[in-house]
């Protein structure tokens, strides 16, 4: 015991001594190792004497960490993909104001498509652009004799039943933006019909964004809904996968922000400047990082066939950020309660619909026409959202997700019950329709 305490004291002293070196910049990030290690090396090369300290956390763990340590912040920089994480931090006053030097900012356009690259209030700055799309495993599609997808609407094809994978939007800021893109591109009603139908085709719904590329790379599922660099970097590392941007997609910046009251504000500003400078931006082209810079002229130096979001038709959606962030909690919870948590019922319902559809198409029975009517009803039941878009943006409803009142529990129960009854009905109708084909 004595010996143990001796060692303990020793370690503690060692720790105190080792933490005395002060020239640091502490970064909380959710980015993969390849990205932060390359930036750590190049930044330290440019600023000798400053050590980049990485604190790698999942986005949501990072937000919680900053919130819980705000009394005495230990991080200087928050550096992740998801815009909603920054919005949350900003609304809680955890980010510092900063105006990077003019010569840096002048080279970066204000907007990509309709999405502002930097926070208008100067709290966080876009340093790379990401688009959303579909990645697939070539071996898998070949073995299951499936065609490669091109558009979001392809995800509703009966052929893909059980072969798709997505992460829950409540778990992944990037998936939330994909869902929101679909809702804005196709409209609320059609959008949800698409989401529900493709939801019924999902083989699984993962809890981490990275679970999707993982499942596709290892060939557990064929096609995944991902942010572009997951697909591009997997291709660069020699995995048998491919990636495509659907024609209707939104492009959104990944950002960096300075933590309010961090211990090394000067180094933090230097790091942000470096990220946005030409040398910092060129790092994004390295194959294991594979992200899109925010300085348009740099694409002249890009590797061959590199997507250019400023030129190509990427981003056919006029993405409305205010609309998106205003109803974020509602959309995420809705998706969870009618798709993620009721996935089995939804998948079964669509399975029965596809079966009936096939049987009816081949059927010569006199009742086939009546069967088709039933089938149409079944489809309707399996592709309806419980609320309309007006209600989704309603202050009272979105407010329910911020307070502790019982309204949230009540809404979620309603949605869940709505979904369960509808999917049961859809399945029943589809089975009836199938019986008429005989």
């Amino acid at each position, binding site marked *: 015991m004595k010996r143990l305490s001796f060692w*303990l004291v020793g370690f503690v002293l060692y720790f105190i001594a080792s933490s005395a070196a002060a020239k640091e910049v502490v970064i909380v990030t959710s980015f993969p190792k390849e990205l932060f290690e390359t930036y750590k090396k190049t930044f330290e090369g440019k600023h000798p004497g400053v050590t980049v300290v990485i604190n790698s956390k999942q*986005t949501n763990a990072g937000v919680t960490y900053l919130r*819980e340590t705000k009394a005495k912040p230990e991080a200087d920089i928050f550096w992740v993909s998801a815009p*909603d994480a920054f919005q949350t931090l900003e609304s809680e006053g955890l980010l510092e104001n900063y105006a990077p030097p003019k010569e840096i900012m002048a080279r970066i356009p204000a907007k990509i498509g309709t999405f502002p690259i930097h926070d208008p209030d100067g709290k966080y700055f876009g340093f790379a652009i990401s688009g959303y799309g579909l990645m697939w495993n070539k071996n898998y599609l070949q073995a299951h004799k499936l065609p490669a997808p091109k558009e979001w609407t392809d995800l509703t094809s009966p052929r893909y039943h059980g072969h798709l994978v997505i992460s829950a939007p*409540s778990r992944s800021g990037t998936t939330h933006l994909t869902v929101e893109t679909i809702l804005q591109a196709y409209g609320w009603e059609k959008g949800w019909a698409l989401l529900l139908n493709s939801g019924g085709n999902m083989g699984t719904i993962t809890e981490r964004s990275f679970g999707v590329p*993982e499942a596709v790379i290892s060939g557990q599922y064929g096609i995944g809904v991902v942010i572009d660099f997951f697909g591009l970097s997997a291709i660069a590392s020699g995995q048998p996968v491919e990636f495509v941007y659907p024609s209707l997609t939104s492009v959104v910046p990944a950002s960096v922000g300075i933590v309010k009251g961090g211990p090394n504000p000067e180094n933090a500003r230097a790091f942000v400047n470096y990220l946005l400078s030409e040398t910092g931006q060129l790092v994004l082209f390295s194959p294991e990082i594979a992200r899109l810079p925010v300085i348009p002229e740099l694409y002249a130096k890009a590797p061959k066939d590199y997507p250019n979001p400023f030129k190509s038709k990427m981003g056919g959606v006029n993405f409305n950020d205010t609309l998106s962030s205003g109803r974020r909690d509602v959309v995420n919870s809705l998706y969870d309660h009618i798709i993620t948590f009721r996935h089995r019922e939804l998948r079964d319902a669509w399975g029965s619909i596809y079966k009936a559809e096939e049987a009816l198409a081949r059927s010569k029975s006199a009742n086939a026409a009546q069967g088709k009517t039933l089938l149409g009803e079944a489809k309707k039941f399996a592709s309806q959202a419980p609320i309309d878009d007006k209600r989704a943006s309603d202050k009272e409803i979105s407010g329910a997700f911020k307070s*502790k009142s019982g309204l949230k529990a009540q809404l979620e129960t309603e949605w*869940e019950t709505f979904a369960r009854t509808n999917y049961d009905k859809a399945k029943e109708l589809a089975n009836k329709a199938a019986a008429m084909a005989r």
Partner: protein
Amino acid sequence: MAFLLAILIAFILYPILRVLWIALSDETGNLTLIHFLNFFRRPLFREALGNTLVSGLLVVVFSGLISLPLAYIIARYEFRAKILLQTAATLPLVIPPFVGAVALQLILGRSGMVNLLLMRWFDMTIPFMEGLTGVVLVQTLHFFPFILLNTVVSLSNIDPSMEEMAQNMGCHGFRLFRRITLPLMLPGFIAGSLLTFIRTIDDLGTPLMLNYKNLLAPQAYLRITTVGMDDVDGYVVCVVLVVLSLISLLAARKYLGLAEYATVQRSAPVTRRLHGKKLLLVWLLCGAILGVSLLPHIGILLLSFSKVWSFTLLPTAYTLGNFAEILFRAPHFIKNTLLYTLLAAGLDIILGAAIAFLLLRSRLAGRNLLDAIATLPLAIPGVVLAVGYLRVFHGWDFPGLGAPLTSSWVILVVAYTMRRLPYTVRASYAALQQVHVNLEESAQSLGANRLKTFAKVTLPLISGGLVAGGLIGFVTSCVELASTIMLVPRIELGPISYGIYIYMQSPLGRGAGAALGVVAILLVSLGTYLTHRIFGGRAGNAFRI
């Protein structure tokens, strides 16, 4: 007693309450139970509650079925390479996060090795890894060592003269087992079942690995960790889990409290040597059970050498680069893991023994409170404890550290110690329950004081249980993720589980993550093996696995 209680309150109860208070208060901060009413009103939560209970019970039943024959063999027979078997039996408890999931998918998943073969030969697949069935399957393979470990200790603590007496009176075979052996080994078996049950209902890793969300633990986790929302329901689910765990703990205590399990005499139990056909049979049985439960480990080993493994039976390109990466470029993960987990296991043994002693040998008021608090961490998701620590220890410099506790690695040791404390408490409790108080009383009447009695009589007798508990603590801390991810102050201070998380965030890192997983498994095997070698000899037959 007061000191112990203070430690437990400071590092378990208070941080947890700081977090869970939200579930018990309304908007103005007054105590309310409305959230719990809402919990039972919601079909989703009722379904999750039902699923959780069902999976918990099924896992206990199946684990019991697997463990009893194995435990009997290990405790009662002597054969060559038994130590290998004992070591391998601990490994299922260690499924490294993320890579374990990927490896298991690559073997049992829908495009895994087994199903690819089935597809090729019979044009069919079996969904091993889907739905509640998949969860129960994986959890059984994952948690059965809890029952096994505890039953073996219990079995070898039984005074063989009891069985001999029964045999003299004509009781043999199954009747002997049912009437004498089974009741006598119940403390260990029940302690193991209890651990398995609580661990199963609180298990987060398996459901997340299989993407099955309609259970209580994932519902709590998903709701608590969503960005930008303080979802009360998540915390409510946590409280429900805590209550469930405490109820099962009390029920087990009540049941065991009805009878007496202590034995006065301690003669070496008889173990029979195995030869020939019987030995072969034993090996086949053990091989089959362990072979299946070690599938993830085999998968991780393969993955660690693979460069490309996608939709094929085996990897298509191999490399040694993954090991070079983790051994030469980032060796700190391994070093940190050893430091943190060994310190935590040591502290756990000391605390666990002290608590168990107070529980069984003292009449102090409040000792049951001690027990309840020490068991809490089993039922508390790592995230909640971690957030509690940040909330309680962040703002001020810890005396002697010169910095807040949360900005040093000490917080990780504290977290591991507290998270694994229930194991050593339960294990020491079961061991102490089998030591008759007469033994201590005679030592005292011969002039030894309490401390000496404890050191010279009690401690040697329960050392098997203590070390078994410490071992489980060490083994499971090696791969603890939930609290680690929240508490690691900087990347250089991260342990293996954190390293795996970092590698698994990039498509290139899968192999390196798996290599770290292999190192974790090797560390655990080495620890288990050494414990057997050292304590298996000195502690006589008290320590069996």
